[in-house]
């Protein structure tokens, strides 16, 4: 039985931009780190992982050791760039107030008319903004949906399969280009050094799992090698989900199909996750030397946070076949927290 859920709340703030990033994943090197665990691949296999062991503290501009192969982060064809903050007037000049005059006449009020029966207001047709074509990307980037594929994992430094590593390569590269004004080679080197930090990759996993939308759609009890975020759940990267991408593309309500135990509620559905990759503040990433992932002030035009998908996706709500879509989702106190009522 399906249960329709609508968002009761939440602290969806934020805004800013980067939506026009399209690219294709064509990386070819696959240097697995010996310290990173495997991710969730097989239906019953372990989920996305990242070691929580010690990490060399890194601050300031970090550079990889000589001889380190330069990964290919698939720089986007357009750098997109953060949209300027939305102004109070939404880019429209504020209304001009006429200067006072010496005329002491009272302001003229138009006389009432008998034809006050305005036609009923028809809600505007739904507008996908940003459009679907700009929202889904086969390479994990900020503020886009990433369709998980077989053998993907959260952790590690595989430039083919690590979601966190590739996300950092992309975001750090764009930070270095847009904010740091590095040339392409320097930006690639800097991005590579940023993405190799275990702790920052772990922060990416938390960022994805703390998105209330992701957690509500896919959050399940952690397995041995998965990293649980503050809410105690993990996204397992298993093919137990519905056709979320095609549903969203057709503006239909997506549904949760994974039980808390990580199994499909309806076994007919065997799709992988369509993950929302939150947008981050690239200026902060650059200024912190590639150590800080911040979503503060990264907002959609309606003021909601880019920790969750755009407002038109959120407005679709979420159905449920699992019986697990109840309560609070996302991490406590984050802008991406959701309450399902």
């Amino acid at each position: 039985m399906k249960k329709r859920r609508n968002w009761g709340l939440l602290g969806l703030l934020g805004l800013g931009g980067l939506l026009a990033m399209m690219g294709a994943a064509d990386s070819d090197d696959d240097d697995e780190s010996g310290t990173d665990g495997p991710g969730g691949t097989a239906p019953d296999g372990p989920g996305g992982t990242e070691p929580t062991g010690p990490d060399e503290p890194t601050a300031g501009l970090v550079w990889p050791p000589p001889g380190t192969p330069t990964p290919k982060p698939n720089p986007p064809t357009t750098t997109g760039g953060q949209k300027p903050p939305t102004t109070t007037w939404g880019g429209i000049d504020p209304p001009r107030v006429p200067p006072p005059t010496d005329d002491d006449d009272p302001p003229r009020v138009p006389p009432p008319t008998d034809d006050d029966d305005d036609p009923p207001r028809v809600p505007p047709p739904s507008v996908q903004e940003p459009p679907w074509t700009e929202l889904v990307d086969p390479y994990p980037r900020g503020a886009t949906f990433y369709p998980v594929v077989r053998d993907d994992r959260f952790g590690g430094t595989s430039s083919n399969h690590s979601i966190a590593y590739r996300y950092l390569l992309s975001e750090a590269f764009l930070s270095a280009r847009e904010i740091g004004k590095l040339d392409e080679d320097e930006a690639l080197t800097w991005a590579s050094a940023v993405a190799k930090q275990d702790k920052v990759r772990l922060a990416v996993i938390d960022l994805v799992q703390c998105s209330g939308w992701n957690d509500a759609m896919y959050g399940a009890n952690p397995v041995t090698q998965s990293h649980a975020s503050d809410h105690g759940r993990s996204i397992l990267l298993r093919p137990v989900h519905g056709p979320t991408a095609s549903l969203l593309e057709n503006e239909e309500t997506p549904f949760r199909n994974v039980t808390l135990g990580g199994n499909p509620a309806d076994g007919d559905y065997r799709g992988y996750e369509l993950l929302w990759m939150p947008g981050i503040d690239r200026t902060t990433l650059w200024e912190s030397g590639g150590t800080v992932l911040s979503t503060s002030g990264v907002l959609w035009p309606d003021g909601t946070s880019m920790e969750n998908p755009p407002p038109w996706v959120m407005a679709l709500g979420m159905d449920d076949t699992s019986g697990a879509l109840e309560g609070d989702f996302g991490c406590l106190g984050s802008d991406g927290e959701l309450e399902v009522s």
Partner: protein
Amino acid sequence: MSRMYQVILQLSELPGQGLLEGVLDVLAEHNCRWYLGQWATYRDPPGDLLRAGVRWRPDAPGMEAFFQDAPIVLRRRWASCGPIAAISVGHARALERLRGMSAPRSRELHRVVLLPRGRVRGGLQWHAFHLANHQLVDPTRHMRRI
């Protein structure tokens, strides 16, 4: 004045971002333990420095930095951004540990981070923030400045 202990760290060159963040992280952990100790003895010192009347005094450009812990700042009611952020982070870590979070995890979730805010005499001028998970919080944001 009550007892005060000074730790003096002398450097031969301007400290970088990482070193200052490391020092402030140690201070934040010290503050965290102080809050936990206070709560263990049924005292409830303020965690919200703004409401406690603490004012922010930006460091003058110079070759020195002075950091104070939570009891000193709460007593004298002013500090620079570094100690203020270290108190905010320490208090948040203490709350997390009270809820059962492990110490290492609380240190990952709540950190003092420094971001550049202009240049002074060729060196970067830093401002300290509280990074709470993925939210960058400026604890001095609404504070009265002196």
